[in-house]
């Protein structure tokens, strides 16, 4: 999936295919039962999967066969976004569907920690290290209450829009505690690689 004028971090995905196998039964379960449970979900038959999806697939699988995927899009950037507690609740819903299914399912969330505060061009380059360290500490201790209370305003001002993706995953893995494999305070973005072992 060669992208025009791709950034370097997307050029590493150039060798990857444009389309992927979908786990339609699991996808439909999450969708249909989600609608029943009060989540206003929508589906697309042709949504393009870009670096948010392909970077982890590429990193984890390399040239090995790619298992069926269920890509889930969270509107992280365009107001009005879903709230943190709602994303968390949706993650709990995913966990319920998966638990009742016969499949082994891995759940991956992607997204940076703080970057691009207020989506303001002059502020590109700023991060909020204190905020990110607090999020990491909450995840390490399994203290998900404060994370569910994160407001849209906090996420916007710190540039933590993409943490909504993490919130979905946290709802799915709770009450597991995170193991931090990497935490980097980089010049323009804070990043972390975090893992949850589910018993």
């Amino acid at each position: 999936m060669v992208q025009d004028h791709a950034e370097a971090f997307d050029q590493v995905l150039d060798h990857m295919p444009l389309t992927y196998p979908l786990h339609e039964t699991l996808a439909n379960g999450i969708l249909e039962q989600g609608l029943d449970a009060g989540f206003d979900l929508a589906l697309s038959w042709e949504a393009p999967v870009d670096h948010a999806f392909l970077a982890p697939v590429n990193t984890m699988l390399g040239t090995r066969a790619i298992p069926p995927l269920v890509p889930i899009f969270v509107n992280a950037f365009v107001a009005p976004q879903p709230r943190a507690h709602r994303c968390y609740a949706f993650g709990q819903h995913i966990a319920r569907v998966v638990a009742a299914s016969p499949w082994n399912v891995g759940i991956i969330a992607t997204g940076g920690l703080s970057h691009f505060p207020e989506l303001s061009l002059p502020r590109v380059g700023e991060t909020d290290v204190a905020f990110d360290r607090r999020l990491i500490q909450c995840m390490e201790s399994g203290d998900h209450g404060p994370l569910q209370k994160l407001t849209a305003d906090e996420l916007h001002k710190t540039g933590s829009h993409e943490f909504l993706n993490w919130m979905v995953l946290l709802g799915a893995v709770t009450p597991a505690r995170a193991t931090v494999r990497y935490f980097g305070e980089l010049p323009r973005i804070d990043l972390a690689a975090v893992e949850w072992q589910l018993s």
Partner: protein
Amino acid sequence: MSRYEINSLLYRLKKDPEFRARFLADANAVLAGADLTDAERAAFVARDMRRINELGGYLHLVMSVPGLAAH
């Protein structure tokens, strides 16, 4: 504010090379029918991505229009 029009234009400029080429050749002509305020139109004509962002253009779009991207 014409936030929808601003972002629609940015998206076309990013995704449609032919539209982008016409814009670069004659921005005023391309924007003639666009539903923009005078300030928004001036920002596009000046290719002032910082101003377009202030006026409601989404950051990821103003950072990713080939040849116009502001980093």
